[in-house]
């Protein structure tokens, strides 16, 4: 699975960080998303999918399975 983030869409809610802290972080100054792992291991697939669903700005996209 490949993860893409659309930073200009991000609203800094931080929900992805709560669900998948190994994949997402937030910038200190404004809270915008930082992608830590573009190709997370398979055991994180479900958490990353939930992060993409929960994102209130639809700023996370998954490519491939």
């Amino acid at each position: 699975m490949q993860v893409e983030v659309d930073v200009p869409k991000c609203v800094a809610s931080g929900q992805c960080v709560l669900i998948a802290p190994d994949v997402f972080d937030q910038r200190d100054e404004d809270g915008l998303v930082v992608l830590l792992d573009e190709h997370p291991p398979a055991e994180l697939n479900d958490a990353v999918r939930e992060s993409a669903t929960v994102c209130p700005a639809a700023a996370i996209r998954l490519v491939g399975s």
Partner: protein
Amino acid sequence: MTAAPRRVVIVGASAAGLAAAETLRRLGHTGTITLIGDEASAPYDRPPLSKEILSGAWTPDRLPLRAASDLDGLDLDTRYGRAAIGLDPGARTVQLSDGSEAAYDALIVSTGVRPRHLPGTPAHVLRTLDDALALKDRLGPGRSLIVVGAGFLGAEAAAVAAGLGTKVTLLEPAPVPLAHAVGQVVGSVLSQAHLDHGVDLRTGTAVAEIVPTGVRLTDGSVLTAETVLVAIGCRPNIEWLTGSGLSLDDGLVCDEYCAAAPAVYGAGDVSRWHNPLFHTSMRIEHRTNATEQGIAAARNLLGGGRPFAPVPYFWSDQYDMKIRAHGHLRGHDEVRIVEGDLRERTFLAAYRTGNRLTGVLAVGMPPKTVRPWQRAIAARTRWQDVIPASAPTTTGTTP
């Protein structure tokens, strides 16, 4: 229910309905998912309507919540442009406005809300993309706008309109905008930003009706503007459930599992559910709640059995202010400013209800500063355990 439902129908094709559909697939539902929506388009995002779309910073092609190929991957039976008009829970069918029916084994109701109107001449409202584009055409230098209602939506629209050079008058019946939601002091500080940006904010000013030249106030006088936006809140879309036997009370009444009846779940703005974290029934029109509750309803529909006990969250962008709030602020007993400075509009306010920390509202604070507070609210932390007795500012009622 013992057997997994084969046919799931989701009524309402916006954020909550989409989150439910995605979650059903993620958790392994292989049966059909029928997604019904009264708007003609695929699910799109609404918060940018009063921000980036209204200002022109974004074009509408940025609004779809998912790429078409991602939606295709969910294998949905989509029925857009059709409203649900009736429900027969005995026969387990939904009646649609085009005369067709959708049969279900399990149902998710996510029909959302619609704007309240005022009597008189039709005025602008702001809920759909069409609404936003119609209003945007009326803004700019030399134009005039009256916004009725200084809640979060009205405040955002006023800020954008003023930023585009529009002459804006913002009318609010309460003495302090947003006071019922965030308290008098925080409401005053937030509304001061309107005055600083040239918006003519008039509090204690109630509108009786819309007239062709503007609005008529309850004192009989008329304020004129070329365009009027009514932003006085919303009503849940529950009329189609009348007579279905489901419990309706300013929303579809659901339990802590988001269940309204056997095999019927509610999610998003339309749902009034019991939030066990705050021991109270709530109906929340926040973007994040729509998604979280869509996920929770879908999980429980599949037998998840997990109470939905979120810390509500919302954000609002007004002028240069980034406002973020976590928790259940309504009905609070006390507000304290625990970080920052009210006068600089950079602060974190903590809210007490009973002996618990129940909410925080931050303006211009780094999100990482706010996150520990969100965790403390979720952990039902006692007020005295997080608020130092010497907190710099005390507002509201003191114990």
